[in-house]
Protein backbone atom coordinates (compact mmCIF):
# COMPACT_ATOMS: atom_id res chain seq x y z
CA UNK A 1 0.00 0.00 0.00
CA UNK A 2 3.01 2.25 -0.48
CA UNK A 3 2.48 5.73 -1.88
CA UNK A 4 5.68 5.27 -3.78
CA UNK A 5 5.29 1.91 -5.51
CA UNK A 6 5.58 2.30 -9.28
CA UNK A 7 5.24 -0.26 -12.04
CA UNK A 8 7.26 0.23 -15.22
CA UNK A 9 8.14 -2.20 -18.00
CA UNK A 10 10.38 -4.80 -16.38
CA UNK A 11 10.57 -2.82 -13.19
CA UNK A 12 8.45 -3.21 -10.12
CA UNK A 13 9.80 -0.34 -8.03
CA UNK A 14 9.11 0.07 -4.33
CA UNK A 15 9.87 3.71 -4.91
CA UNK A 16 10.62 5.70 -8.04
CA UNK A 17 14.04 7.00 -6.95
CA UNK A 18 17.30 5.57 -8.26
CA UNK A 19 20.86 6.69 -8.72
CA UNK A 20 21.73 7.69 -12.31
CA UNK A 21 24.27 5.83 -14.34
CA UNK A 22 27.89 6.85 -13.84
CA UNK A 23 27.16 8.63 -10.59
CA UNK A 24 27.04 5.57 -8.38
CA UNK A 25 29.65 3.20 -9.81
CA UNK A 26 28.32 -0.30 -9.20
CA UNK A 27 27.01 0.59 -5.79
CA UNK A 28 29.89 -0.59 -3.62
CA UNK A 29 30.94 2.83 -2.39
CA UNK A 30 27.46 4.01 -1.47
CA UNK A 31 26.73 0.73 0.29
CA UNK A 32 29.06 2.05 3.01
CA UNK A 33 26.46 4.72 3.71
CA UNK A 34 23.16 2.89 3.51
CA UNK A 35 21.42 -0.33 2.59
CA UNK A 36 21.04 -0.37 -1.19
CA UNK A 37 17.74 -2.20 -0.75
CA UNK A 38 16.23 1.16 0.06
CA UNK A 39 16.61 2.30 -3.54
CA UNK A 40 13.89 1.88 -6.13
CA UNK A 41 16.47 0.64 -8.59
CA UNK A 42 20.13 1.16 -9.45
CA UNK A 43 21.38 2.37 -12.80
CA UNK A 44 24.89 1.02 -12.99
CA UNK A 45 27.84 2.59 -14.79
CA UNK A 46 27.99 2.26 -18.58
CA UNK A 47 29.35 -1.09 -19.69
CA UNK A 48 31.24 -1.64 -22.93
CA UNK A 49 32.41 -5.00 -24.38
CA UNK A 50 36.06 -4.43 -23.45
CA UNK A 51 37.47 -2.66 -20.40
CA UNK A 52 38.00 1.07 -20.98
CA UNK A 53 40.30 3.45 -19.15
CA UNK A 54 38.39 6.45 -20.43
CA UNK A 55 39.73 9.95 -20.93
CA UNK A 56 42.83 11.53 -19.42
CA UNK A 57 42.38 13.68 -16.29
CA UNK A 58 41.23 16.28 -15.29
CA UNK A 59 37.87 14.74 -15.96
CA UNK A 60 35.64 17.05 -13.95
CA UNK A 61 35.26 20.80 -13.64
CA UNK A 62 32.85 22.78 -11.58
CA UNK A 63 30.45 25.30 -13.15
CA UNK A 64 27.76 27.56 -11.65
CA UNK A 65 25.30 25.16 -9.97
CA UNK A 66 26.67 22.34 -12.07
CA UNK A 67 29.65 20.34 -13.14
CA UNK A 68 31.24 19.10 -16.32
CA UNK A 69 32.48 15.55 -16.65
CA UNK A 70 34.39 13.74 -19.32
CA UNK A 71 34.97 10.36 -17.76
CA UNK A 72 34.84 8.69 -21.15
CA UNK A 73 32.92 5.58 -20.15
CA UNK A 74 35.64 4.09 -17.99
CA UNK A 75 34.52 0.63 -16.97
CA UNK A 76 35.97 -2.81 -16.34
CA UNK A 77 34.32 -4.33 -19.43
CA UNK A 78 31.41 -6.69 -19.89
CA UNK A 79 33.11 -9.76 -18.43
CA UNK A 80 34.05 -8.18 -15.13
CA UNK A 81 30.76 -6.31 -14.82
CA UNK A 82 28.96 -9.64 -15.16
CA UNK A 83 31.37 -11.69 -13.10
CA UNK A 84 32.19 -9.28 -10.30
CA UNK A 85 29.89 -6.29 -10.10
CA UNK A 86 26.50 -7.75 -10.92
CA UNK A 87 27.14 -10.83 -8.81
CA UNK A 88 28.11 -8.58 -5.90
CA UNK A 89 24.87 -6.67 -6.41
CA UNK A 90 22.88 -9.91 -6.20
CA UNK A 91 22.93 -9.63 -2.41
CA UNK A 92 20.37 -6.84 -2.81
CA UNK A 93 16.80 -7.20 -4.01
CA UNK A 94 16.95 -3.88 -5.81
CA UNK A 95 16.45 -4.22 -9.57
CA UNK A 96 19.40 -3.20 -11.68
CA UNK A 97 19.16 -1.15 -14.86
CA UNK A 98 22.27 -1.83 -16.91
CA UNK A 99 23.62 1.08 -18.93
CA UNK A 100 24.79 -0.21 -22.30
CA UNK A 101 27.41 1.71 -24.29
CA UNK A 102 29.81 1.25 -27.14
CA UNK A 103 31.44 2.70 -30.20
CA UNK A 104 29.76 0.55 -32.81
CA UNK A 105 26.41 -1.10 -33.28
CA UNK A 106 28.08 -4.46 -32.65
CA UNK A 107 29.33 -3.23 -29.28
CA UNK A 108 25.84 -2.30 -28.15
CA UNK A 109 24.35 -5.54 -29.36
CA UNK A 110 26.99 -7.66 -27.69
CA UNK A 111 26.68 -5.94 -24.33
CA UNK A 112 22.89 -5.91 -24.47
CA UNK A 113 22.64 -9.58 -25.33
CA UNK A 114 24.93 -10.72 -22.53
CA UNK A 115 24.13 -8.30 -19.75
CA UNK A 116 20.38 -8.73 -20.15
CA UNK A 117 20.84 -12.36 -19.13
CA UNK A 118 22.07 -11.43 -15.66
CA UNK A 119 19.39 -12.41 -13.15
CA UNK A 120 19.27 -9.03 -11.38
CA UNK A 121 19.27 -6.92 -14.55
CA UNK A 122 15.62 -6.03 -15.02
CA UNK A 123 16.04 -3.48 -17.78
CA UNK A 124 18.64 -2.00 -20.07
CA UNK A 125 19.40 1.66 -20.52
CA UNK A 126 20.73 2.21 -24.00
CA UNK A 127 23.23 5.03 -23.75
CA UNK A 128 23.13 6.66 -27.15
CA UNK A 129 23.86 10.05 -25.70
CA UNK A 130 27.30 10.06 -24.08
CA UNK A 131 28.95 13.30 -25.15
CA UNK A 132 32.41 12.19 -24.03
CA UNK A 133 33.46 9.55 -26.51
CA UNK A 134 34.67 10.32 -29.99
CA UNK A 135 33.01 7.56 -31.95
CA UNK A 136 29.51 6.23 -31.60
CA UNK A 137 27.86 7.35 -28.43
CA UNK A 138 26.18 10.64 -29.08
CA UNK A 139 25.90 10.21 -32.87
CA UNK A 140 23.36 7.44 -32.36
CA UNK A 141 21.38 9.79 -30.19
CA UNK A 142 21.16 12.78 -32.52
CA UNK A 143 20.01 11.15 -35.75
CA UNK A 144 16.49 9.75 -35.31
CA UNK A 145 16.89 7.02 -37.93
CA UNK A 146 20.09 5.76 -36.36
CA UNK A 147 18.54 5.82 -32.92
CA UNK A 148 15.57 3.83 -34.16
CA UNK A 149 17.65 1.18 -35.88
CA UNK A 150 19.92 0.67 -32.94
CA UNK A 151 16.91 0.36 -30.66
CA UNK A 152 15.39 -2.31 -32.89
CA UNK A 153 18.60 -4.31 -32.99
CA UNK A 154 19.10 -4.13 -29.26
CA UNK A 155 15.47 -5.02 -28.61
CA UNK A 156 15.94 -8.09 -30.80
CA UNK A 157 18.67 -9.47 -28.54
CA UNK A 158 17.63 -8.21 -25.11
CA UNK A 159 16.00 -10.48 -22.57
CA UNK A 160 14.61 -7.51 -20.66
CA UNK A 161 12.82 -4.24 -21.52
CA UNK A 162 14.96 -1.57 -23.15
CA UNK A 163 14.96 2.08 -22.10
CA UNK A 164 16.73 4.49 -24.40
CA UNK A 165 18.69 7.39 -22.90
CA UNK A 166 18.17 10.58 -24.86
CA UNK A 167 20.61 13.37 -25.48
CA UNK A 168 19.50 16.95 -24.84
CA UNK A 169 21.96 18.22 -27.45
CA UNK A 170 19.45 18.08 -30.27
CA UNK A 171 17.18 20.51 -32.08
CA UNK A 172 14.15 18.31 -31.66
CA UNK A 173 14.18 15.77 -28.86
CA UNK A 174 10.56 14.77 -29.50
CA UNK A 175 11.56 13.51 -32.93
CA UNK A 176 14.28 11.29 -31.47
CA UNK A 177 11.92 10.06 -28.76
CA UNK A 178 9.28 9.10 -31.31
CA UNK A 179 11.87 7.34 -33.42
CA UNK A 180 13.07 5.13 -30.59
CA UNK A 181 9.49 4.45 -29.56
CA UNK A 182 8.83 3.32 -33.12
CA UNK A 183 11.98 1.20 -32.82
CA UNK A 184 10.37 -0.67 -29.96
CA UNK A 185 11.81 1.05 -26.90
CA UNK A 186 9.95 0.16 -23.71
CA UNK A 187 10.80 3.42 -22.04
CA UNK A 188 12.96 6.51 -22.17
CA UNK A 189 15.50 7.91 -19.78
CA UNK A 190 16.30 11.58 -20.09
CA UNK A 191 18.28 13.68 -20.05
CA UNK A 192 21.93 12.90 -20.46
CA UNK A 193 24.34 15.80 -20.05
CA UNK A 194 24.49 19.01 -22.07
CA UNK A 195 27.71 19.62 -23.95
CA UNK A 196 29.80 22.26 -22.20
CA UNK A 197 33.29 23.56 -21.62
CA UNK A 198 35.24 25.52 -19.07
CA UNK A 199 38.52 27.33 -19.66
CA UNK A 200 41.30 27.94 -17.22
CA UNK A 201 41.77 31.65 -16.55
CA UNK A 202 45.55 31.35 -16.34
CA UNK A 203 46.31 29.13 -19.31
CA UNK A 204 43.33 29.84 -21.53
CA UNK A 205 43.03 26.10 -22.15
CA UNK A 206 40.10 23.84 -21.32
CA UNK A 207 40.18 22.52 -17.76
CA UNK A 208 39.07 19.09 -18.94
CA UNK A 209 41.74 17.09 -20.72
CA UNK A 210 38.98 16.04 -23.14
CA UNK A 211 38.29 19.77 -23.74
CA UNK A 212 34.49 19.44 -23.72
CA UNK A 213 32.42 17.60 -21.17
CA UNK A 214 28.87 16.89 -20.14
CA UNK A 215 27.08 19.44 -17.99
CA UNK A 216 25.02 18.01 -15.13
CA UNK A 217 23.58 19.20 -11.84
CA UNK A 218 20.94 21.74 -10.79
CA UNK A 219 21.85 24.15 -13.59
CA UNK A 220 20.34 21.82 -16.21
CA UNK A 221 17.12 21.07 -14.36
CA UNK A 222 14.99 23.58 -16.31
CA UNK A 223 16.22 22.09 -19.59
CA UNK A 224 15.39 18.58 -18.42
CA UNK A 225 11.97 19.66 -17.19
CA UNK A 226 11.11 21.23 -20.54
CA UNK A 227 12.20 18.15 -22.47
CA UNK A 228 10.37 15.68 -20.23
CA UNK A 229 7.29 17.90 -20.53
CA UNK A 230 7.46 17.97 -24.32
CA UNK A 231 8.33 14.31 -24.86
CA UNK A 232 5.91 12.82 -22.35
CA UNK A 233 2.97 14.28 -24.28
CA UNK A 234 4.13 12.78 -27.56
CA UNK A 235 5.02 9.22 -26.62
CA UNK A 236 3.15 6.54 -24.76
CA UNK A 237 6.14 4.84 -23.15
CA UNK A 238 7.21 5.89 -19.66
CA UNK A 239 10.07 8.24 -18.90
CA UNK A 240 12.65 8.00 -16.15
CA UNK A 241 13.61 11.63 -15.65
CA UNK A 242 16.98 12.99 -14.57
CA UNK A 243 19.00 16.16 -14.66
CA UNK A 244 19.73 18.20 -11.57
CA UNK A 245 17.46 16.42 -9.12
CA UNK A 246 18.50 17.12 -5.54
CA UNK A 247 15.37 16.92 -3.45
CA UNK A 248 11.95 15.36 -3.06
CA UNK A 249 10.51 18.60 -4.48
CA UNK A 250 12.57 18.11 -7.62
CA UNK A 251 11.27 14.54 -7.93
CA UNK A 252 7.69 15.82 -7.80
CA UNK A 253 8.50 18.51 -10.35
CA UNK A 254 9.77 15.84 -12.76
CA UNK A 255 6.63 13.78 -12.20
CA UNK A 256 4.56 16.88 -12.93
CA UNK A 257 6.56 17.30 -16.13
CA UNK A 258 5.68 13.76 -17.15
CA UNK A 259 8.24 11.39 -15.67
CA UNK A 260 7.20 8.09 -14.09
CA UNK A 261 10.38 7.64 -12.08
CA UNK A 262 13.43 9.77 -11.37
CA UNK A 263 17.17 9.24 -11.27
CA UNK A 264 19.62 11.23 -9.20
CA UNK A 265 23.11 11.78 -10.56
CA UNK A 266 25.46 14.56 -9.53
CA UNK A 267 23.69 15.11 -6.22
CA UNK A 268 25.18 11.84 -4.92
CA UNK A 269 28.60 13.47 -4.97
CA UNK A 270 27.36 16.37 -2.90
CA UNK A 271 25.40 14.29 -0.42
CA UNK A 272 26.03 10.54 -0.39
CA UNK A 273 22.72 10.05 1.41
CA UNK A 274 20.67 12.07 -1.05
CA UNK A 275 18.70 9.11 -2.46
CA UNK A 276 17.49 7.67 0.86
CA UNK A 277 16.85 11.21 2.13
CA UNK A 278 14.60 11.91 -0.84
CA UNK A 279 12.83 8.57 -0.44
CA UNK A 280 12.22 9.28 3.25
CA UNK A 281 10.84 12.72 2.55
CA UNK A 282 8.53 11.84 -0.34
CA UNK A 283 5.52 10.38 1.49
CA UNK A 284 5.13 13.40 3.78
CA UNK A 285 5.62 15.80 0.91
CA UNK A 286 3.00 14.00 -1.17
CA UNK A 287 0.58 14.18 1.71
CA UNK A 288 1.24 17.91 2.20
CA UNK A 289 0.51 18.43 -1.48
CA UNK A 290 -2.68 16.41 -1.26
CA UNK A 291 -1.67 13.34 -3.20
CA UNK A 292 -2.47 9.81 -2.18
CA UNK A 293 0.06 8.24 -4.51
CA UNK A 294 3.05 9.62 -6.36
CA UNK A 295 1.66 8.58 -9.73
CA UNK A 296 -1.08 11.16 -9.28
CA UNK A 297 1.58 13.79 -9.88
CA UNK A 298 2.50 12.34 -13.25
CA UNK A 299 1.97 14.76 -16.13
CA UNK A 300 0.11 17.32 -14.05
CA UNK A 301 1.85 20.14 -15.94
CA UNK A 302 -0.06 19.22 -19.06
CA UNK A 303 -3.00 17.12 -17.90
CA UNK A 304 -6.34 18.64 -17.02
CA UNK A 305 -6.32 19.54 -13.38
CA UNK A 306 -8.62 16.81 -12.06
CA UNK A 307 -7.63 14.83 -9.04
CA UNK A 308 -6.05 11.82 -10.66
CA UNK A 309 -6.63 8.45 -9.17
CA UNK A 310 -4.06 5.82 -9.74
CA UNK A 311 -4.13 2.11 -9.27
CA UNK A 312 -2.66 2.22 -5.78
CA UNK A 313 -0.28 -0.59 -4.97
Amino acid at each position, binding site marked *: MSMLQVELPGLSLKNPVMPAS*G*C*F*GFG*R*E*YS*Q*FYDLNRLGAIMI*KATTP*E*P*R*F*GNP*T*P*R*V*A*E*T*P*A*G*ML*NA*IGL*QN*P*GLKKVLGEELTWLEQFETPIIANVAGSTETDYIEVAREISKAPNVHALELNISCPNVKTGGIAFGTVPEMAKELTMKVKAVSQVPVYVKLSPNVTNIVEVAKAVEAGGADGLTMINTLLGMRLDLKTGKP*ILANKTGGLS*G*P*SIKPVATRMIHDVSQQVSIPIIGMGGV*QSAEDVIEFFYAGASAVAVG*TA*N*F*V*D*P*LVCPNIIDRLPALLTELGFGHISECMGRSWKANEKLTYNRA
Partner: protein
Amino acid sequence: MIKNEICTVVSQEQIADSIFELTLKGELVSEMSQPGRFVHVKVTAGAEPLLRRPISVANINPSESQFTMIYRAEGRGTQLLAEKKPGDGVDILGPLGNGFPVEEAEAGDTALLVGGGIGIPPLYELAKQLTAKGIKIIAVLGFQSASAAFYEKEFAQLGETYVATIDGSLGTKGFVTNVLTSRSILADVLYACGPIPMLKALETSHKGQKAFLSLEKRMGCGIGACFACVCHTAEDPEGHSYKKVCSDGPVFRAGEVIL
Protein backbone atom coordinates in the same frame (compact mmCIF):
# COMPACT_ATOMS: atom_id res chain seq x y z
CA MET B 1 34.05 4.42 8.70
CA ILE B 2 33.29 7.41 6.52
CA LYS B 3 30.90 9.83 8.17
CA ASN B 4 29.00 12.85 7.03
CA GLU B 5 28.62 15.42 9.77
CA ILE B 6 28.10 19.12 10.27
CA CYS B 7 31.19 19.91 12.31
CA THR B 8 31.50 23.07 14.36
CA VAL B 9 34.18 25.69 13.83
CA VAL B 10 36.38 25.94 16.92
CA SER B 11 38.78 28.47 15.46
CA GLN B 12 39.76 29.96 12.13
CA GLU B 13 42.92 31.96 11.67
CA GLN B 14 44.83 33.37 8.76
CA ILE B 15 48.41 32.17 9.22
CA ALA B 16 50.06 33.37 5.98
CA ASP B 17 49.16 35.04 2.68
CA SER B 18 45.81 33.44 1.72
CA ILE B 19 46.54 30.51 4.06
CA PHE B 20 43.98 29.66 6.74
CA GLU B 21 44.08 27.27 9.66
CA LEU B 22 40.64 25.95 10.50
CA THR B 23 39.92 23.77 13.51
CA LEU B 24 36.67 21.84 13.63
CA LYS B 25 34.99 19.73 16.26
CA GLY B 26 32.95 16.67 15.41
CA GLU B 27 32.32 13.05 16.23
CA LEU B 28 33.93 11.90 13.03
CA VAL B 29 37.30 12.76 14.55
CA SER B 30 37.01 9.40 16.31
CA GLU B 31 37.45 7.81 12.88
CA MET B 32 40.69 9.68 12.20
CA SER B 33 44.05 8.21 13.01
CA GLN B 34 46.24 7.70 9.96
CA PRO B 35 47.94 10.89 8.75
CA GLY B 36 47.56 11.97 5.11
CA ARG B 37 43.87 11.21 4.77
CA PHE B 38 41.49 13.97 3.70
CA VAL B 39 37.98 15.26 4.19
CA HIS B 40 35.54 16.42 1.52
CA VAL B 41 34.10 19.79 2.48
CA LYS B 42 30.82 21.34 1.38
CA VAL B 43 31.34 25.03 1.99
CA THR B 44 27.74 26.22 1.63
CA ALA B 45 24.35 24.59 1.79
CA GLY B 46 23.27 25.74 -1.67
CA ALA B 47 24.04 24.63 -5.19
CA GLU B 48 26.79 27.15 -5.80
CA PRO B 49 29.55 26.19 -5.41
CA LEU B 50 28.15 22.75 -5.98
CA LEU B 51 30.97 20.31 -5.34
CA ARG B 52 32.81 19.42 -2.19
CA ARG B 53 36.45 20.47 -1.78
CA PRO B 54 39.07 17.88 -0.78
CA ILE B 55 41.27 19.15 2.06
CA SER B 56 43.86 17.15 3.99
CA VAL B 57 43.71 16.59 7.70
CA ALA B 58 46.67 18.50 9.11
CA ASN B 59 46.29 17.79 12.78
CA ILE B 60 44.17 15.36 14.78
CA ASN B 61 43.24 16.02 18.38
CA PRO B 62 41.21 12.96 19.36
CA SER B 63 40.83 13.85 23.02
CA GLU B 64 39.01 17.07 22.10
CA SER B 65 37.26 15.54 19.06
CA GLN B 66 38.95 18.22 16.98
CA PHE B 67 40.94 18.28 13.78
CA THR B 68 42.67 21.00 11.85
CA MET B 69 42.83 21.78 8.16
CA ILE B 70 45.23 24.24 6.57
CA TYR B 71 44.18 25.55 3.20
CA ARG B 72 44.74 28.25 0.66
CA ALA B 73 41.71 30.48 0.07
CA GLU B 74 41.93 30.95 -3.65
CA GLY B 75 38.85 29.95 -5.60
CA ARG B 76 35.27 30.59 -4.67
CA GLY B 77 34.84 27.55 -2.45
CA THR B 78 37.86 28.06 -0.26
CA GLN B 79 37.14 31.78 -0.05
CA LEU B 80 33.71 31.03 1.35
CA LEU B 81 35.25 28.55 3.76
CA ALA B 82 37.56 31.30 4.99
CA GLU B 83 34.49 33.31 6.04
CA LYS B 84 33.39 30.73 8.59
CA LYS B 85 33.49 31.88 12.17
CA PRO B 86 33.67 30.00 15.46
CA GLY B 87 30.34 28.32 16.12
CA ASP B 88 29.42 28.03 12.43
CA GLY B 89 28.78 24.59 10.99
CA VAL B 90 30.81 23.03 8.19
CA ASP B 91 29.56 19.98 6.27
CA ILE B 92 32.33 17.39 6.34
CA LEU B 93 32.48 14.01 4.64
CA GLY B 94 35.33 11.89 5.88
CA PRO B 95 37.86 10.78 6.69
CA LEU B 96 38.60 9.63 3.16
CA GLY B 97 41.33 7.77 1.35
CA ASN B 98 44.47 6.06 2.45
CA GLY B 99 47.15 8.17 4.08
CA PHE B 100 50.83 7.85 4.86
CA PRO B 101 51.95 4.47 6.21
CA VAL B 102 53.52 5.33 9.55
CA GLU B 103 54.31 1.65 10.01
CA GLU B 104 56.87 1.80 7.20
CA ALA B 105 59.27 3.55 9.58
CA GLU B 106 60.56 2.13 12.82
CA ALA B 107 61.81 3.72 16.00
CA GLY B 108 65.35 4.95 15.36
CA ASP B 109 64.78 5.44 11.64
CA THR B 110 65.06 8.78 9.95
CA ALA B 111 62.13 9.94 7.83
CA LEU B 112 62.44 12.68 5.26
CA LEU B 113 59.28 14.75 4.84
CA VAL B 114 59.14 16.94 1.76
CA GLY B 115 56.23 19.30 1.20
CA GLY B 116 55.44 22.05 -1.25
CA GLY B 117 52.89 24.78 -0.50
CA ILE B 118 49.50 23.38 0.37
CA GLY B 119 51.05 19.93 0.18
CA ILE B 120 52.61 20.60 3.56
CA PRO B 121 49.56 20.32 5.85
CA PRO B 122 49.16 16.51 5.87
CA LEU B 123 52.86 16.17 6.67
CA TYR B 124 52.32 17.86 10.00
CA GLU B 125 50.16 15.15 11.53
CA LEU B 126 52.57 12.64 9.98
CA ALA B 127 55.55 14.37 11.63
CA LYS B 128 53.77 14.29 14.99
CA GLN B 129 52.99 10.61 14.74
CA LEU B 130 56.46 9.66 13.51
CA THR B 131 58.27 11.54 16.26
CA ALA B 132 55.88 10.07 18.82
CA LYS B 133 57.03 6.67 17.60
CA GLY B 134 60.67 7.61 18.10
CA ILE B 135 61.44 8.28 14.49
CA LYS B 136 63.72 11.16 13.63
CA ILE B 137 62.23 13.49 11.08
CA ILE B 138 63.84 15.90 8.67
CA ALA B 139 61.36 18.28 7.06
CA VAL B 140 61.97 20.21 3.85
CA LEU B 141 59.27 22.73 3.14
CA GLY B 142 58.86 24.80 0.01
CA PHE B 143 56.91 28.06 -0.33
CA GLN B 144 56.49 30.89 -2.82
CA SER B 145 57.92 33.45 -0.44
CA ALA B 146 58.33 34.27 3.24
CA SER B 147 54.87 35.78 3.42
CA ALA B 148 53.31 32.55 2.16
CA ALA B 149 55.26 30.39 4.63
CA PHE B 150 53.51 28.64 7.49
CA TYR B 151 54.16 25.97 10.11
CA GLU B 152 57.98 26.17 9.72
CA LYS B 153 58.22 26.66 13.48
CA GLU B 154 55.82 23.85 14.26
CA PHE B 155 57.88 21.48 12.15
CA ALA B 156 61.11 22.77 13.68
CA GLN B 157 59.81 21.75 17.09
CA LEU B 158 59.51 18.19 15.87
CA GLY B 159 62.80 17.90 13.99
CA GLU B 160 65.38 19.34 11.66
CA THR B 161 63.54 21.67 9.28
CA TYR B 162 64.69 23.35 6.06
CA VAL B 163 62.77 25.92 4.11
CA ALA B 164 63.03 26.90 0.46
CA THR B 165 61.27 29.86 -1.12
CA ILE B 166 61.11 30.62 -4.80
CA ASP B 167 62.02 34.25 -4.29
CA GLY B 168 64.63 33.50 -1.64
CA SER B 169 62.89 35.61 0.97
CA LEU B 170 63.16 32.76 3.50
CA GLY B 171 65.59 29.85 3.66
CA THR B 172 67.20 28.53 0.49
CA LYS B 173 66.27 30.29 -2.75
CA GLY B 174 64.54 27.92 -5.12
CA PHE B 175 62.59 24.69 -4.77
CA VAL B 176 62.71 21.99 -2.13
CA THR B 177 64.83 20.02 -4.58
CA ASN B 178 67.48 22.74 -4.28
CA VAL B 179 67.67 22.03 -0.56
CA LEU B 180 67.89 18.31 -1.19
CA THR B 181 70.72 18.55 -3.74
CA SER B 182 72.68 21.09 -1.70
CA ARG B 183 72.69 18.87 1.39
CA SER B 184 73.11 15.15 1.54
CA ILE B 185 70.19 14.02 3.63
CA LEU B 186 70.14 10.35 4.44
CA ALA B 187 66.79 8.91 5.37
CA ASP B 188 65.20 5.48 5.65
CA VAL B 189 61.92 6.57 4.22
CA LEU B 190 60.60 9.52 2.24
CA TYR B 191 57.13 10.99 2.57
CA ALA B 192 56.14 13.80 0.23
CA CYS B 193 53.19 15.90 -0.83
CA GLY B 194 53.15 18.81 -3.25
CA PRO B 195 53.01 19.75 -6.91
CA ILE B 196 53.51 17.07 -9.55
CA PRO B 197 56.89 18.39 -10.80
CA MET B 198 58.20 18.14 -7.24
CA LEU B 199 56.88 14.62 -6.82
CA LYS B 200 58.35 13.59 -10.16
CA ALA B 201 61.75 14.95 -9.22
CA LEU B 202 61.63 13.08 -5.91
CA GLU B 203 60.55 9.88 -7.59
CA THR B 204 63.59 10.09 -9.83
CA SER B 205 66.06 11.12 -7.14
CA HIS B 206 64.82 8.48 -4.69
CA LYS B 207 64.46 5.66 -7.18
CA GLY B 208 64.59 2.29 -5.46
CA GLN B 209 64.20 3.84 -2.05
CA LYS B 210 61.22 3.58 0.23
CA ALA B 211 59.07 6.56 -0.68
CA PHE B 212 55.42 7.55 -0.39
CA LEU B 213 53.86 10.32 -2.40
CA SER B 214 50.54 12.02 -1.90
CA LEU B 215 48.72 13.14 -5.06
CA GLU B 216 46.06 15.70 -5.90
CA LYS B 217 43.42 15.32 -8.60
CA ARG B 218 40.18 17.09 -9.35
CA MET B 219 37.47 15.06 -7.68
CA GLY B 220 33.78 14.45 -7.97
CA CYS B 221 32.52 12.05 -5.32
CA GLY B 222 35.69 11.64 -3.26
CA ILE B 223 34.75 8.06 -2.38
CA GLY B 224 35.54 6.04 -5.48
CA ALA B 225 32.24 6.07 -7.34
CA CYS B 226 32.65 8.55 -10.19
CA PHE B 227 36.03 7.75 -11.75
CA ALA B 228 37.03 11.43 -11.85
CA CYS B 229 40.36 10.97 -10.12
CA VAL B 230 42.00 7.95 -11.68
CA CYS B 231 45.60 7.51 -12.69
CA HIS B 232 47.32 4.83 -14.70
CA THR B 233 49.36 2.24 -12.85
CA ALA B 234 53.09 2.00 -13.50
CA GLU B 235 52.86 -1.64 -14.57
CA ASP B 236 50.23 -0.90 -17.22
CA PRO B 237 50.86 2.74 -18.16
CA GLU B 238 48.74 2.78 -21.34
CA GLY B 239 46.24 0.10 -20.42
CA HIS B 240 43.01 0.06 -18.57
CA SER B 241 44.22 -0.75 -15.09
CA TYR B 242 43.98 2.22 -12.77
CA LYS B 243 44.08 3.58 -9.24
CA LYS B 244 41.69 6.11 -7.78
CA VAL B 245 43.35 8.96 -5.93
CA CYS B 246 40.35 9.43 -3.66
CA SER B 247 39.93 5.87 -2.45
CA ASP B 248 43.15 4.00 -3.35
CA GLY B 249 45.26 7.08 -2.56
CA PRO B 250 45.86 9.94 -2.15
CA VAL B 251 49.13 8.37 -0.89
CA PHE B 252 50.86 5.87 -3.15
CA ARG B 253 54.18 4.10 -2.95
CA ALA B 254 56.58 5.86 -5.34
CA GLY B 255 56.50 4.06 -8.68
CA GLU B 256 53.06 2.59 -8.15
CA VAL B 257 51.15 5.03 -10.35
CA ILE B 258 51.99 7.32 -13.23
CA LEU B 259 52.31 10.86 -11.88
